[in-house]
């Protein structure tokens, strides 16, 4: 008898886990009434750095019409992820995807056939973007060149190769609430949108726990370099000690206030931030300076 009860319980837990780990796509009406603005779409595209990850290895990402044929490799503690082709090619890329398909990928980490994406695709930041941003972005993506290079499979082992397990990971990793909560000035709000959402700054600057989830208590407080043995610096106001002007100049030119120049992975981030408007860079600076001190 007791054995049956236990078996029933185990089955219930497994069924619960299966249900919980299912995909959570956007509501069907999420994009209703939104009209695409391709000019804003280009801004979203640059701020989000899509091309930095999706161009071929060694190809130039900071050009007007990058060829996003994929192939770049991202080493992690779970294995190697390989960026797929997201060019406008109808078969090899995402040329045949609807706005809703693209929105579910970027805002929910869910594929058109309902599978979970790995967070090497930084939707754990992008989920703070707006539906309007994504409709605009989708219009811009359709203007990008098509390329027939097939996407490659990731090089990851069991159990991480079971995409369903990512459903529980997503539940545990935390939701899309803004981290700097509450009422802020319009400039800080714009900076928050860029830093916490599109710019995905925390993917590198915030430490992760053993399961690869962001430690929100150490927001932007510095982290080990994902692919090497160095460190990504803290960018909280006290750790940085820079003025708004210093930060905006760094994001525009790569020069620090002491005229060292940025290195490592930050160089390709600056290739993007240098193409934003100066208002956007000022907004990023205002946001960083509005963060609580890290106490360091």
């Amino acid at each position, binding site marked *: 008898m007791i054995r049956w009860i236990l078996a029933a319980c185990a089955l219930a837990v497994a069924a619960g886990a299966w249900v919980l780990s299912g995909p959570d796509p956007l509501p069907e009406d999420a994009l209703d009434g939104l009209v695409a603005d391709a000019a804003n779409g280009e801004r979203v595209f640059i701020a989000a750095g899509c091309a930095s990850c999706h161009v071929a290895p060694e190809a130039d990402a900071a050009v007007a019409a990058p060829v996003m044929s994929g192939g770049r490799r991202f080493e992690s503690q779970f294995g190697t992820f390989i960026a797929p082709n997201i060019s406008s090619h109808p078969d090899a890329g995402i040329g045949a995807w609807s706005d809703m398909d693209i929105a579910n990928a970027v805002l929910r980490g869910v594929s058109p056939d309902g599978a979970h994406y790995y967070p090497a695709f930084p939707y754990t930041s992008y989920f703070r973007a707006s539906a309007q941003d994504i409709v605009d972005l989708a219009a811009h993506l359709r203007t990008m060149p098509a390329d027939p290079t097939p996407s490659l499979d990731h090089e990851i082992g069991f159990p991480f190769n079971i995409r369903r397990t990512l459903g529980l990971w997503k539940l545990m990793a935390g939701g899309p609430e803004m981290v700097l909560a509450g009422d802020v000035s319009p400039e800080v709000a714009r900076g928050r949108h860029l830093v916490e959402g599109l710019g995905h700054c925390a993917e590198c600057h915030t430490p992760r726990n053993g399961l690869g989830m962001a430690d929100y208590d150490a927001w932007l407080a510095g982290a080990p370099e994902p692919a090497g043995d160095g460190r990504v610096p803290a960018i909280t106001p006290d750790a940085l000690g820079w003025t708004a002007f210093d930060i905006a100049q760094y994001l525009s030119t790569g*020069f620090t206030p002491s005229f060292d*120049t940025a290195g490592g992975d930050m160089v390709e981030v600056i290739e993007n931030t240098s193409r934003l408007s100066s208002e956007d860079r000022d907004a990023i600076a205002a946001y960083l300076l509005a963060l609580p001190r890290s106490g360091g």
Partner: protein
Amino acid sequence: MTRIIRLSVLVAAGIAVAGIASAQSNDPLAAAVKARQSHMQLYSANLAVLGGMAQGRMDYDAEAAQAAADNLAALASMSQRFYWVPGSHAGAVEGTRALEVIWTDGGIGAEAEAFSAAVAGMQDAAGGGLDALRAAIGPVGASCGSCHENYRQSNN
């Protein structure tokens, strides 16, 4: 138990001695690291004049801009082979951020050439007005940045 404690004291002492040794300037690898970092600091000191004017942190001054650009060109023309010593990379020597690939992937020469070309452009432009200086500073910064992207560890 006491054995373990004694052993770990010995190990700690050994680490301390090794630390002191590598910090001393009579260690040739540590001296090489110090020399090349000083070379980089001289780049920064001169870039601060050019970049400071380009960013509006200080007023444009043709004579000072030209002097800084000439200094950068002189620094870029110097042979640095005596302080980029094989075996002096991050992980092998204390206090350096130079990545080991500098000595293995064969790309560092092209970085240095791109840097020299950008600095030559600056030398031609710096004394010719603020707009010319501003146009020339992008390539200089990009060439410093490209080398730091590929060959310098992030570790601040």
